[in-house]
Every structure is written in structure tokens, then in C-alpha cells.
């Protein structure tokens, strides 16, 4: 009598991510999501159908071999899974945490057609963390080819685009130097994204890995000021330059009262807290001022990060003000839900018109106007229209403006011959990152305007390939 092979029941929902309790975490900067256990990971990996189509791969800008690494997890071969990911992704512990997988790999998952998609991001994070904790760093990580044969390439900016481009070029045998303006490498990963979403030790370990590939990082070097792109090419012996300087310039609203004390750009608010560790003041010397009642303007991921940071810095109430409705909110759903659980209030269809201060110049309130949704604008979203006579005042003592960042203008302004787009971006070929200057490539937010970590990484990867092709053809 033969036994029929037992078919495992289909699990329709993702294995939940263990998390810190919302009430506890609102008072600390420790990571919110705690990560899968081995048991969680194997169970989630078993949800993967290992389908022929492998559609998930088309959603990954850095082309990770997703079904292959999941198959390794299913068998409990976590180190092997990590090696599969590392073939394509130099920063998996970061991507597993901050990629918007719902718009990338998981959007294409076959399981997702009827049920919840496989938790690819959670699995990637598990594998990357496993590798960071359990693996000895490889003495000399494998190089794919030696086409670079030691030729020198400069990378400007050590954010996701720059790190990816540098790591890929190093693997091809190039001698790569990254120039970073701040005192610490990582770009937005260290100054922007908070500790509770992306612990800085995780970022540092990933950067250590990139350095182990032979990439040199020079901090405290502002390309445009300390050195120019032309000097790198003409005097310092670099044969190509990749510019990944990001979208670091804060936007303000240009409303009255914006220069009152207590009004921060999200960039400043987050940089003081994350890069400078103002949450550990006075042990760390950088101060930050968070009042009792904080208003955050905007509803993207940066706004939500700012709001949750304000709460952790001790604010009694934190409110988000967004001029459109919940449906148009650009923040990830997961982050919105996390923020709501922690007690952040969301005010939709409302926009500040004036910030009010006392005679000492400190913020005491914010005047807003109600909005309604009108016709769709060029972004396809219905555009907000003010409702006449609906003005109202909110008592707040800190305002964080998080309505977006513009490309950092320093390199574009100081590099002759570089074609600049309408909004201050560097014009570059989408597939190669080639700019209007020979030997100069660009990618990430400096080309696209503010976008995501993973898109910047994808651009860095494409540019690395194009730089290799350019230098190979030249010699």
C-alpha cells in the first residue's frame, strides 16, 4: 500500500514580522522590526511556488536571483542563500529593510495574484543578517573578471548609488575611490533613515563589505569645493567619474514664519538625530530642540520618519499635515501603519499657510487651510485645492518641513559641460548613466530627483557596467 505524498496546505498570508510593541518602541530608537527566526524564514520560504515565470526578478532593479535564494532558505542553507543574493546585491541587509518590496519584487509574485505575496524582503533581510552574524568575512571576495586591471575610477557620494557602483567596479578589477562630503559614509542611509528603521551598525557592516572588495572611501571631501570633477580627471589620475550625490537639498514652503525658531527641514531634523546622534545629547554634543507639540508637513517616508523621530525624542503629540488624502500619501503603507500604532496623528486635506511665532521668534502655532481634491494634475493624482474661508490654527511649537528634497546643486554648478535638467538634476542616459561629459557618469537621486534606495542602487549597477564598457573600449 503506497502512501500519497502529503501536500502541504497553502499558507495565504505572509509570516508576520516580529516587532517591538508600539508603546515600548515609541520611547526608544531600537529597531522596530526584529527580523525572522530561522523557523519563520523556512516557513515563509515554503510559501514560494518556485514558479517557472520567476516574475519577481523583473521587479528587482539589481536583478537578485530571488527564487534561487529562497530555494536555499527552504533547505536551511542560509549561507548559500546569502551568496546567491550577494552575486547581485552588495547591500542586502539594507535592501531587506528599506526597499518598498510592494512596488518591486513582491508586486510581481505569483502568490500575490490571489493571496499575499511571498515576503521576499523579509527573507532577504533574514539571510543578510544571518550572513553578517555567522559568516567570517571572506578574505578576498571573488572578483568576477579582471577587465578593470587596476584602472582608477572615482565615485562621488557614498550613498546607495555610489556604494553599488563602486562595489561592482571593484569586482571587475577597477581601483575605486569614493569621495564623501560628510565625515561618515553611507549618504542617506546614515543621515536620513532613522536608527529604528535601519540600524547604523547594519549600514556600517555593509560598507565594511564594500571596502573589503578593495574600495577606498575618502570622507570629508566635498567634490566641487575640496576638489572638482575636472581635477579628479585631469590631475588625480581617475579615468572615469560616477556622480551619485543624491537629492540632499531641502525644500521649504515659502510661507511666512518659516525662519522662526523651531522650524526644521526634515533633512536637518533627521541629520541632527541620525548622523550626529542628537538623541544621545549631551553625551553627543549636537543638540536638537523638540517641543511638546510637533507638526510635520508632508506625508512621504521622510515625513513619517521625522514624525516617529520626534515622538522618540520626547514630543507629547506629533501630527502629520498633508494637503492630499490618505490615498495619495506617498509613504509606504507599512510605515504609515507603524506610525499610527505609535500614536502619530494624521491630518489629511490640510495645508499650512503661515507659521506663527512669539516676540522671541519661537514657533507657537501654525495656520492651515482645508483642501479638497480637484482635477488630476500632471502626476495623475487629483490636485489639492484650498477651501476658501476654512482657515484654522493649531497650537504647535516645532514644525518639520518634509515636502521633498531637490538634487544637491554643488557638483552640477561646478562641473562645466554637464547638462542639467529643468529641476537641477544631471541629465544622464537611463541605461548607462552617461552624462553629456565624456567619462562622467551619474545615477540615483541626482538624476531622477528624490526616489528610493533600490532605484539608486539599480542606477549604480548599470553605470558600473557602462563605465567598464567605456574604459574597455578606450584601451
Amino acid at each position, binding site marked *: 500500500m503506497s502512501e500519497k505524498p502529503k501536500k502541504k496546505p497553502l499558507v495565504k498570508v505572509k509570516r508576520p514580522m516580529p516587532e517591538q510593541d508600539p508603546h515600548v518602541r515609541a520611547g526608544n530608537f531600537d529597531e522596530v522590526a526584529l527580523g525572522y527566526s530561522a523557523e519563520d524564514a523556512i516557513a515563509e520560504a515554503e510559501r514560494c511556488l518556485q514558479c517557472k515565470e520567476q516574475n519577481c526578478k523583473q521587479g528587482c532593479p539589481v536583478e537578485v536571483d530571488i527564487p534561487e535564494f529562497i530555494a536555499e532558505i527552504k533547505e536551511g542553507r542560509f549561507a548559500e542563500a546569502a551568496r546567491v543574493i550577494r552575486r547581485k546585491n552588495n547591500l542586502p541587509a539594507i535592501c531587506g529593510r528599506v526597499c518598498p518590496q510592494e512596488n518591486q519584487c513582491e508586486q510581481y509574485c505569483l502568490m500575490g495574484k490571489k493571496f499575499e505575496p511571498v515576503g521576499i524582503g523579509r527573507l532577504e533581510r533574514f539571510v543578510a543578517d544571518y550572513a553578517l552574524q555567522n559568516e567570517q568575512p571572506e578574505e578576498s571576495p571573488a572578483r568576477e573578471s579582471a577587465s578593470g586591471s587596476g584602472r582608477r575610477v572615482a565615485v562621488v557620494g557614498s550613498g546607495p548609488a555610489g556604494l553599488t557602483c563602486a562595489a561592482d567596479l571593484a569586482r571587475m578589477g577597477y581601483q575605486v575611490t569614493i569621495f564623501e562630503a560628510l565625515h561618515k559614509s553611507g549618504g542617506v542611509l546614515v543621515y536620513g533613515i532613522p536608527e529604528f528603521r535601519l540600524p547604523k551598525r547594519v549600514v556600517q557592516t555593509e560598507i565594511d563589505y564594500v571596502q573589503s572588495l578593495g574600495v577606498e572611501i575618502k570622507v*570629508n571631501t*566635498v567634490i566641487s569645493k575640496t576638489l572638482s570633477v575636472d581635477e579628479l580627471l585631469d590631475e588625480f589620475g581617475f579615468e572615469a567619474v560616477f556622480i551619485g550625490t543624491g537629492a540632499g*537639498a*531641502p525644500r521649504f514652503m515659502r510661507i511666512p514664519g518659516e525662519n522662526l525658531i523651531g522650524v*526644521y527641514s526634515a533633512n536637518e531634523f533627521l541629520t541632527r538625530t541620525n548622523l550626529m*546622534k542628537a538623541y544621545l*545629547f549631551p553625551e553627543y*554634543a549636537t*543638540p536638537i*530642540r523638540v517641543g511638546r507639540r510637533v507638526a510635520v508637513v508632508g506625508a512621504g517616508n521622510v515625513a513619517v520618519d521625522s514624525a516617529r523621530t520626534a515622538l522618540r525624542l520626547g514630543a507629547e503629540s506629533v501630527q502629520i499635515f498633508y494637503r492630499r488624502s490618505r490615498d495619495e500619501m506617498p509613504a509606504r503603507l507599512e510605515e504609515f501603519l507603524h506610525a499610527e500604532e505609535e500614536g502619530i496623528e494624521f491630518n489629511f486635506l490640510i495645508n499650512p499657510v503661515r507659521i506663527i511665532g512669539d516676540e522671541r521668534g519661537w514657533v507657537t502655532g501654525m495656520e492651515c487651510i482645508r483642501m479638497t481634491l480637484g482635477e488630476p494634475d500632471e502626476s495623475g493624482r487629483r490636485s489639492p485645492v484650498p477651501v476658501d474661508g476654512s482657515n484654522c490654527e493649531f497650537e504647535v511649537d516645532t514644525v518639520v518641513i518634509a515636502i521633498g528634497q531637490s538634487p544637491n546643486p554643488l557638483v552640477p554648478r561646478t562641473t562645466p559641460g554637464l547638462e542639467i535638467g529643468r529641476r537641477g538634476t544631471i541629465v544622464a542616459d537611463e541605461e548607462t548613466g552617461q552624462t553629456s561629459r565624456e567619462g562622467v557618469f551619474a545615477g540615483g537621486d541626482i538624476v531622477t530627483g528624490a526616489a528610493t534606495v533600490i532605484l539608486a542602487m539599480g542606477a549604480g549597477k548599470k553605470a558600473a557596467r557602462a563605465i567598464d564598457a567605456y574604459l574597455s573600449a578606450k584601451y
Partner: protein
Amino acid sequence: MYPIQVKRTLAPGVRLYEISAPLVARKAQPGQFVIVRVNETGERIPLTIADYDRKMGTITMVVQEIGFTTKTLAKMEVGDALLDFIGPLGNPSELRDSGTVVCIGGGVGCAPLYPQVRALSQKGVNVITIVGARSAEHLILTRELGRYSNQLHIATDDGSQGRKGFVTDILKDLIEQGTPIDQVIAIGPMIMMKVVTGVTKQYNLPTMISLNSLMVDGTGMCGSCRVTVGGVTKFACVDGPEFDAHQVDFDEQMKRAAVYRDQEAKALARLDCGCRNGH
């Protein structure tokens, strides 16, 4: 790391440092500044470049010990090194190459004024320098400034050296004596720059001032150094630090400078009680 090559006391609570930073020294120009972080737990503060030596690869800064970081710096000695040193940042001064320029320095403001005075003099400009301080012992760099100035005037609050009074008293005299003045440059405490600007506005004299606003990155990323100039918000780090004085909202700047006064007191209390290592 950026070693301290020279440390010298110029006046009570005011010290001169020469820091080894060859890449910064290679590019530095009058009017620019650096961002400094003294140690791992330190904050980033902007300091104006007082001089540079391209051959030696050094930057000179003159620092008044007023806050936590400047006091921590004061405890460092030759041979110690600053952890981070970034620059040269901001725009170089746009200096005239003819006519008469009145250069006014107040307190440590005389330090960043010095390379401008020297450059103006070397271009052949008639330089009239006015320096001011609380008392004789607080005057700095008068000899160096005198060397490159066609006239050097001194004012002290208590009259212990030069004229008893303010720099503006001397400026007003110069104007009323009919001295032809093409431009005024004023660098010093905000209140001094505001008062100078009040005078030059009356006489319609073009005036440049240099702001030393609070900054974090110094490269246009944070907006901490916002200043209203001619009704428009500018960033002192990338749009300045020098601005047309007649357009600057000084009252707003003075208010903004007070934002962390409470925290600063807290940090200083820790420093003074010795429960924190300055290095």
C-alpha cells in the same frame, strides 16, 4: 585626522590654531570657512578661515571659546588632531581691485578680516581698517592688519587703547570728514555688523558682512543657516557666508542664533564639572 601644528593665545579666551589640512589649504580663499568636528562625540561647527599656507598645507583659524566645542578645542594641544576638517566651504569674497575700502573688524572678527585686508592691499586698494574690542587685551592681529592697511584705527569700549567708543564712531568721523569710501566690509559680532549697517545705509555705502550662522553639514543640505536677504531665504553655507549687508535681516539672525542656548548651558555644565573627557 588633522593635526594641530600651532596653538597660540591671542587674547583672553581667544586662540589661534594652525591645522594641517593640505587639500583644504590648496583651495582656500579669503571669505571661506571650514566645518570642524573635534572628536567622535563632537558636533560639526563652522569656523571662518583666518589664513592659509598652501606650501605648508595648513589652515589658520582664530577661535573664541564660547561654547562646548570651542572649549573642548581649547583643551587640545599641538600634536593632538581634529577628527574631521572639511572645506573650503562657502563662496570666496568678491574683492574690489581699486578705490577705498573701509574694513571693520570686531573682536575675533578681525581674524577672517585679515586675509581680505591683505588681498585688498595687494590689489592696490586704499585700505582703511577699523578694529574694535572690549579693551586693549581683547584686541587681536592689530600688527598684522596694520601692515596691510593705509590707515589703522582702534576703538575700545573702555578706552584702554585707541579711541574710547565703538567702531561706528570712527566710521562716522571718516564719512563726515569727506573720506571717499567705495565699500565697507564688516566682520564681527552680529550686533556690531547690524550697527555698522545702520550707519552705512544712511550714507548709501555698499557694505558686505560675513555671517557665522549655525550649521550642520555646511554644504546646503540642512538649512540650519537660513537667512533672509532682500526678503528671500538664503543659506549662509552655499549662498554666502558674505552678503550685501543692506539686505540682511539681522534681527531674525540674532533670534536664530539663540535656538540652542539652553542645551549649550547643559553641555557646558558637563564640561566644567569634568565628567566628560574633552578629547
